[in-house]
């Protein structure tokens, strides 16, 4: 069942243009280049998800797909061939929500994660490359457990857990609706 209150504080990403993201650390464009490089071409392809699709995502990922519109971009290489997908997503932090970007290969593996905004009292380490690199190569066959897949950061356990669960949820979306 759709959470009737979710809409009160999660602004649908579909109404936000690329330039309107209030990123504390990275803009969408910067995150795209950080994960896929300067030569990649991005085609904005937001996903409109029905309630049934969101239920299916919840069932497969174990966490809610709150937004009806998932911000996503097809990513093409310089030769015009599809090399993966780029997502921008929000997860719940201790006080505010954390905006992050995830790159997924056509094989369904994580290519990179970038933290776009993080405003919590503890856990700035989530921005460090050494922590984010633990996500690279993860796929749906991995357990997605804290301290197994990625290390926990004390004082930011909820943030780490929700980022890990969020990455899994985006892989599920790719697996269910985008994989060709």
């Amino acid at each position: 069942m759709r959470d009737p209150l979710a809409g009160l504080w999660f602004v649908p990403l579909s109404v936000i243009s690329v330039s309107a993201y209030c990123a504390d650390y990275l803009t969408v464009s910067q995150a795209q280049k950080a994960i896929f490089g300067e030569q990649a071409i991005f085609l904005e392809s937001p996903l409109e998800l029905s309630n049934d699709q969101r239920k299916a995502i919840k069932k497969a990922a174990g966490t809610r797909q709150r937004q009806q519109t998932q911000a996503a971009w097809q990513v093409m290489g310089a030769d015009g061939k599809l090399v993966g997908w780029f997502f921008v997503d929000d997860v719940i932090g201790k006080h505010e929500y954390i905006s992050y970007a995830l790159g997924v290969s056509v094989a369904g593996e994580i290519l990179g994660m970038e933290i776009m905004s993080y405003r919590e009292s503890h856990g700035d380490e989530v921005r460090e490359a050494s922590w984010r690199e633990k996500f690279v190569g993860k796929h749906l066959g991995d357990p997605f457990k804290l301290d197994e897949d990625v290390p926990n950061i004390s004082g930011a356990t909820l943030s780490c857990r929700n980022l890990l669960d969020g990455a899994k949820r985006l892989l599920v979306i790719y697996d269910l609706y985008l994989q060709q």
Partner: protein
Amino acid sequence: MSAFSLPAMAGESLFGFVKGAETLPEGAGELYQKVISRSDKGTGEYEAINWETELEYGITDRFSMSGSFKMLSLDTSGLIIDGYLPKEEDFSFKPMGLEAAATYMFLSPAKDNFGLSGQISFDYSWLDTHSGQEKDTYSLELDAIAQKFFLEGQLVWGANFGVETTYADRKEIDGLPADFDWPTDPEMEIELKFGTGLSYRFAPNWFVSLEAYYETEFETEVGQERWSVFAGPSLHYGAAKWWATLSWLPQMKGGGEQYEGQEDTDLHLIEKTEEELRLTVALNF
């Protein structure tokens, strides 16, 4: 007549009474200022304010320690209770006690799905929190603290169970009527506490909560001396460097000993009041 306890903190608190199971990470500190207003005993005027300044520090990622300093403001008139309220008082910010606490997190609510911590606290006070009279009170309290996140942390459940043992020794008061009961022999008491609450994040940084807590006290002479249930809402704001929680907790039901002439017999109004207002402001570093 045990010490009125202001629970030692265990990190950020979404509730007024119920504590959370998460401890501070290693090397992190938090400074709390707690204010609890207790008012209205049904007769006369009674307004007590407990002030507590507490510093908590994360020794490891699972173990934190805290120390606090307590003061009392009291304004009471038109109400004398045999054995409990011997005199009218009117004073502010009188130092009344010290407390030290240690908290260990066995399970993390975010990592292990169900959070569980244990807390031990030792309290020494030299003023009676109810009457403001001189009384040496030593209390040892053990608490089990449970917490669970739902909806990725948008909904939070918490529950606490505590046992407090108290040794108290009143000082003599000059000028009391000959028939006024003010025992100065040391007394021992045991208090049980149970609280639970739900908190919902309705906007970034903002939580609204509902909680209830039950307290009962036993002593040798009278068995169950008192019990009471308080329940009410809280509003919490949390930011990166500070947070605050405001709670209104009226007494819903109570029993045990009553004072002579007490009109509302569904409440315990000797050691408790009809209203509690709790405010905690914290800075983290």
